[in-house]
């Protein structure tokens, strides 16, 4: 048996062991994500292909509507690639948001019967969405091969932007899931956020078409910064990043994540009583 662990439980005491516990339960992240992925495509005929079909079809629609019909500019690269470079982080963010926000309520039986750091539940649903993200990344590679598009050195910065997308999804997810435990209204609010978000974020079009005096305001949407970052890294020299806007987006992502964790930690103790 391992070392002697001494534990003190007291009212209102924020546990010192929390982050240590999180580390101790690290395998649970993996198992919960693994469960969600396994379960997701059980009893489906084409299985994991769903992770490819959905973003692909959305990309086709956006290319036709914004690229062909509305003839919006494409930052000098094939329109499908430009759309898909944004589609990836957006799908990741929106899936993570919807799954994370329902994750605690969906696992109510676990919460009222077993102890583990509750943060694991929303975090592993973000991880699940991240797996989908990686799978649909294959489409991007395919598109690049099809259009013979070779990214430049900036592609190596992509992991940084993936990290930012992760932080944004996590921050917003934590807020929404904690709120959803108490106010089930958020079950209805989240689909709205996701639906509107698709149009107010620069997914189907380039953010350069936003008039410059509105751009700073536009960047209050944290996904604007994330998507611009993705485009900057993937599309190469043609794509320019709007620095002030990007910084604002990053500040908002950071604020979202930090306050999300704080709010989650604060309400976490009463989850078992409220859920």
């Amino acid at each position, binding site marked *: 048996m391992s070392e002697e662990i001494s534990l003190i439980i*007291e009212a209102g005491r924020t546990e010192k062991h929390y982050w240590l516990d999180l580390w101790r339960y690290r395998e649970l992240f993996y*198992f919960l994500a693994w469960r969600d992925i396994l379960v997701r495509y059980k009893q489906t005929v084409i299985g994991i292909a769903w992770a490819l079909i959905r973003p692909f079809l959305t990309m086709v629609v956006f290319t036709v509507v914004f690229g062909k019909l509305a003839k919006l500019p494409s930052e000098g690269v094939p329109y499908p690639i430009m759309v898909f470079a944004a589609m990836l982080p957006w799908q990741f963010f929106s899936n993570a948001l919807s799954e994370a926000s329902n994750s605690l309520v969906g696992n109510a039986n676990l919460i009222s*019967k077993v102890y583990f750091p509750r943060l694991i539940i929303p975090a592993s649903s973000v991880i699940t969405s991240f797996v989908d993200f990686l799978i649909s990344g294959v489409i991007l590679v395919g598109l690049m091969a099809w259009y013979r598009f070779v990214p430049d050195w900036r592609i190596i910065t992509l992991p940084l932007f993936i990290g930012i997308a992760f932080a944004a999804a996590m921050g917003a997810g934590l807020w929404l899931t904690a709120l959803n435990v108490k106010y089930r209204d958020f079950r209805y609010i989240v689909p709205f956020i996701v639906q509107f978000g698709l149009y107010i974020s620069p997914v189907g079009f380039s953010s350069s078409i936003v008039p410059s005096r509105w751009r700073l305001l536009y960047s209050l949407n944290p996904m604007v910064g994330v998507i611009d970052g993705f485009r900057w890294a993937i599309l190469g020299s043609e794509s320019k990043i709007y620095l002030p806007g990007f910084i604002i987006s990053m500040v908002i992502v950071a604020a979202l994540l930090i306050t999300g964790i704080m709010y989650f930690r604060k309400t976490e103790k009463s989850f*078992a009583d409220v859920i």
Partner: protein
Amino acid sequence: MSDTVIKVDNLSKKYLISHQQTERYVALRDVMADKAKSLGRRVLSPFRSSLSAPRSTLEDFFALKDVSFEIKRGDRVGIIGRNGAGKSTLLKVLSRITEPTTGRIEIKGRVASLLEVGTGFHPELTGRENIFLNGAILGMTKAEIKRKFDEIVDFAEIEKFLDTPVKRYSSGMYVRLAFAVAAHLEPEILIVDEVLAVGDAQFQKKCLGKMEEVGREGRTVLFVSHNMGAIITLCEYSILLNSGFIEAIGLTSNVVSKYTIGEQQTENTFLPERGKRTGDGRAYIEKVKVSPNPLRTAEPVEFEFTIDRSHDGRDIQVELAIAVKTEAGTPLFQIYSQHMGRTFLLRQGKTIINAKVDNFYLAPGNYWVNVWMGAGDEPVDWIQNAMLLQVEPGFLVAGQCADSRGYPVIVPSSWDKIDLSPDFLE
């Protein structure tokens, strides 16, 4: 070793309970509707105090109040008490699922709690997958689960169905698998809540054996159960909780007897209204009180009839009977005053008549009871299925009857052995 592993100081847990309506969770809709309503009320009748229409009253409810105790390493401790005494809340606080309102707990060592069998099982996943998932949720590492995998499968007896989704399992298989995973945890402190209530008698025995083994290995076990037999066999010490307070703590035998005595004082009254009633109406059986509550196999039972004869006229001579049937309605036996040579004269007003049975030799289970009051062969008041008696496991002379095995009536007996083997002569 006798050092303290769990130390609980003045622990309290308060819940807010609301009377009236209210759903389990707050919806913004309700909050807003409420605001609008009170605004409307104020506009319509501006002079009435807003206090006059409270929406719901909140009340503090202490599930645990000033509970203190210590548990030493290697102790197996039973926690008993009636429903709502705070047992489960105590376990929840100890396993960190919910936070105490006041007080302090010190725990040394890794805790694993088993408050429900099969927590986190996913119906779509196979038995194999669920072993890993459930193990991880209960705090095992992947390596640990791999090491014990065969043992778990063995214990659960489900080799053949390892790759079948558990949604297709029979409920028995499901429970066996779930307990098997939990039983192979290796915590220093194991907290178990009434999980033995499921599964058949043989499996329960297996589980109890496993828990005894855990205790023998020097680990601490906290065990909640309503099954006194299990508590007595498994635990040296016990804690009796009563509406959030510790009523007794100490050696199991003392605590359990205190609990059973306490139980006897609580009433178990039946108002025979819902049964089918016939009779000439000269008198009524108003109620029948059965004590103790709950009834236990082979323990004494008392039936107390309250009879009302408001009808004025001549006094009547009645006899009383209790007929016991199985839950399915098969007649079993009767307890009849006339067999004992007793009849009773009923004067106008109320009368109380008692019947005592020294040893109620009925196996655990549910039984329908008819009550009969007659004058000669004429029914004065006859109620069929007046009550459903619940009989719980109890001790006979030295053995225990935990299960009827389909034969509800027990006949006490004595047993002897004569050895005829040759080595007896030496």
